[in-house]
């Protein structure tokens, strides 16, 4: 069947009926949320177990079940491999993984997929695992990709039933309170797993730093936790958070950032109480810095910043340029330290951030946001999931959530990456529909979505280089021979959900080349 964007999507996958995307705010939720079973807990309950194997057994994990993880330890994560290795040793098969995201460090999963230990994945796949799954025929059902908000919704709605949630914690107490911001190897908030902890049949907290009761902030709470496992290592500090994120030095990228920041200044949204989402990418980081400088110059005090804590926004908080940071993940050590020290640096979970089926999202409070893309097309549709060669490469993150909510969404992209055009006729995969994308900032000028004539007028009045997206595309296309395009077969290797659980696109297996 075709969805509202004309994308062909399957009717069902894995026995589950799919619903076509009907527009960014095209559906209304109904019914009630699902719930986990009740459980009695007496006084003197001991939750501490001595190994992952013990936890697997105690939690009653069986073949065919679903296990979940968060990605706050990023490329330094040890837990996913530890748990799946243990499952394999214990002879479990046919597991469904429900991680928030997988990284290069999880490459050993490929062997477990080939051996049938893991047969389904619903979660972001960054890098090699995405490339592997894209080959087709690897999983028993297509992978499902969801935004931060959509993942939360899917759990509450019962689209995904988690049997056992495994939650890596930088510090936990024996009663199951856990945090990511303290401990021997802090990683930033672990609230990505809050919904898992609340809804899973069984919740297992795994930590390398068991501390006396009570450990706080309670990102994961005792009332949700069944078991606590202590291990030697939970994450490799080298790969968890960067020392300092580097602002781009490329003149082209700096120009994009300057134009994006100038667009914010000209938009009329930059005033006291300005709320924005930066990010950790080189261009967004630079754009955030430039906007901060403008705010300082004009004496504007922002409301909140979000999009992942970085030293840059922490500096803005300390200087009083923003009043608050709302933080779902921390990208560098300065941000983690600030979460411990600054009362106005507030931990938030993805439900609070972006859940479509909720009574409020922080993303809806955003005035402006800078987001990236692997491709943008002439209808302003954005692809962040697949590469132009059809390979799954990245997760959605908060892309859909932020673009839907922000009054002005600015996609910051170079018009070319090496020899590859970034602005295309039609994106390989739609992650975020053009209806929620307002501005595309490139080194060749700024394109404004025709839905936003108001912004276009303001930009022109401010003397910004406003151009048609097609014009920017043509200029970039003149510099390289067009790349070959993949030919897609029928086999669906992944589906991309929209925030409300409808399907915005399907990723198909590449069967040849034009």
């Amino acid at each position: 069947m075709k969805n509202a964007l004309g994308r062909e999507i399957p009717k069902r996958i894995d026995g589950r009926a799919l619903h076509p995307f009907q527009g960014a705010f095209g559906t209304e939720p109904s019914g009630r949320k699902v719930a986990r079973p009740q459980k009695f807990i007496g006084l003197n309950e001991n939750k501490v177990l001595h190994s992952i194997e013990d936890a697997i057994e105690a939690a009653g994990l069986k073949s065919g079940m679903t296990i979940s993880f968060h990605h706050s330890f990023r490329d330094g994560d040890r837990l996913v491999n530890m748990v799946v290795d243990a499952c394999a040793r214990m002879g479990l098969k046919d597991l469904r993984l429900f991680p928030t995201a997988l990284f290069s460090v999880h490459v050993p999963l490929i062997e477990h997929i080939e051996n049938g230990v893991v047969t389904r994945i619903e979660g972001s796949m960054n890098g090699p695992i995405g490339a592997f799954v894209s080959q087709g025929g690897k999983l028993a059902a297509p992978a499902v990709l969801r935004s931060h908000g959509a993942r939360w919704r899917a759990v509450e709605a019962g689209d995904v039933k988690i049997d056992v949630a495994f939650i890596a914690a930088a510090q936990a107490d024996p009663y199951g309170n856990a945090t990511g911001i303290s401990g021997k190897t802090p990683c930033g908030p672990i609230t990505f797993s809050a919904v898992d902890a609340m809804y899973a049949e069984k919740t297992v907290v795994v930590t390398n730093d068991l501390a006396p009761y009570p450990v706080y902030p309670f990102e994961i709470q005792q009332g949700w936790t069944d078991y606590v496992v202590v291990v030697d290592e939970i994450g490799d500090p080298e790969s968890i958070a960067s020392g300092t994120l580097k602002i781009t030095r490329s003149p082209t990228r700096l120009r994009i950032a300057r134009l994006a920041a100038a667009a914010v200044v000209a938009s009329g949204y930059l005033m006291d109480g300005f709320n924005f989402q930066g990010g950790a990418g080189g261009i967004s980081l630079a754009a955030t810095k430039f906007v901060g400088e403008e705010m300082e110059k004009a004496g504007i005090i922002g409301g909140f910043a979000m999009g992942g804590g970085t030293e840059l926004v922490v500096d803005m908080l300390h200087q009083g340029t923003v009043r608050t940071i709302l933080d779902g993940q921390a990208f560098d050590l300065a941000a983690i330290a600030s979460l411990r020290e600054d009362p106005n640096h507030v931990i938030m979970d993805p439900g609070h951030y972006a859940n479509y089926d909720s009574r409020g999202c922080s993303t809806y409070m955003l005035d402006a946001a800078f987001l990236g893309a692997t491709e943008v097309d002439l209808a302003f549709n954005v692809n962040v999931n697949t590469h132009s060669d059809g390979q799954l490469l990245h997760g959605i993150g908060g892309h859909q959530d932020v673009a839907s909510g922000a009054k002005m969404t600015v996609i910051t992209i170079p018009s070319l990456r090496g020899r590859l055009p970034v602005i295309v006729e039609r994106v390989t995969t739609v992650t975020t529909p053009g209806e929620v994308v307002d501005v595309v900032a490139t080194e060749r000028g700024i394109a404004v979505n025709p839905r936003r004539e108001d912004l276009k007028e303001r930009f022109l009045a401010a003397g910004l280089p406003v151009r048609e997206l097609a014009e920017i595309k043509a200029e970039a296309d003149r510099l390289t021979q067009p790349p070959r395009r993949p030919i897609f077969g029928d086999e669906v290797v992944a589906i991309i959900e929209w925030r409300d659980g409808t399907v915005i696109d399907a990723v198909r297996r590449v069967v040849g080349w034009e």
Partner: protein
Amino acid sequence: MSTQPVKIGSEGKGDCLITVAPSASLKIEIEAGNARLVERGIRIVIEATAEVMGITAAKFTVLDRGALDYVLSARVETALQTAFPEVASPIRRTVERAATARDRLRRSRLYAPGNNPRLLAGIDLHDADCILLDLEDSVPLQEKSAARILVKHLLMALDLPEAWVRINPLSSYGADDLDEVMLGRPHGICLPKAESAADVESLSQALSEKERELGTPVRSTYIMPIVETAKGTLHAEEICAADERVVVVSFGAEDFTRDMGARRTHDNLLFARSMLVAAAKSARVQASDTVYADLTDEAGLIAETKLARDLGFDGKGAINPRQIEPIHSVFSPSEEEIEEAMKVISAAEEAERKGMGAVALGGKMIDRPVLERARRTLRLARLTEEGR
């Protein structure tokens, strides 16, 4: 070709490394990121370039690091010219380049090293008034020929607001540089270490020959002499007046201080700068100040640019795109300056209508120089507005 393979280019970002070896037929091996996507395009560029050059048998091994087509074709041409010096014919293409006005706005001239694809990429995107592609000081000796071919291909591919090439002195590689880069129809040629009218005249003659050969209008290529020696400074007047091709003269402080045995301070350079501006203005050409080398010091750049502007300079050199905006802001008249200038002019017009000889504004006499300055301010304001 000799049996030795020829290696051209680099593994730097935006570049490619091309090896050409003898072969009985045309063979191309490509290693690239995103190979499946880009391989065909790379092949098309290589085949087309080889064909135009009349080469039908050679083995190409390409390591691509994201080279754009003009970089790729330049590297292929350099490799083939090196491998088959007798046979390979240089690439020529008709280049349409819109002429620019002699007295256009030249607030900034942005330098880019001629053999660095990474730094050349996007050189046209930073709103610089003049783009200066360098074949001289920033290009090591062994890369001179690759650089002039790369600059030629860049010129053939990009539409630049005003494109200049800094060639090597005519006494070294300057003539070879012209052979290549004139095929790209730059708006002008920068002559480094200009020391006399004769230096300018010999470049002008060389340009006339090239223009005739290429069928472009004779005397259409501008010259920007760079005065950067003691001798050049003392001969600034004759340099500026030597030829009608000269539209702007620029000052090179680094070489000048070295030649003088001086240290670079504002006071130490004041004589040379003043001399150059006076020479330029007496010949009715523009003067452009030297570059500011400390990239991190924007305040220092702005301060030095203001001093240059107040001396009468029309523009300043930039070594990085990030210097363009500060430079332009100094050379663009402020709102107050524009308002003041408009008042001066309307007062003067009023006086003329009434047949009054002299006129005062706010107690100050408006004489000819004041009126001229006001007109200049408004002209700059208009050009700045148009340039946006």
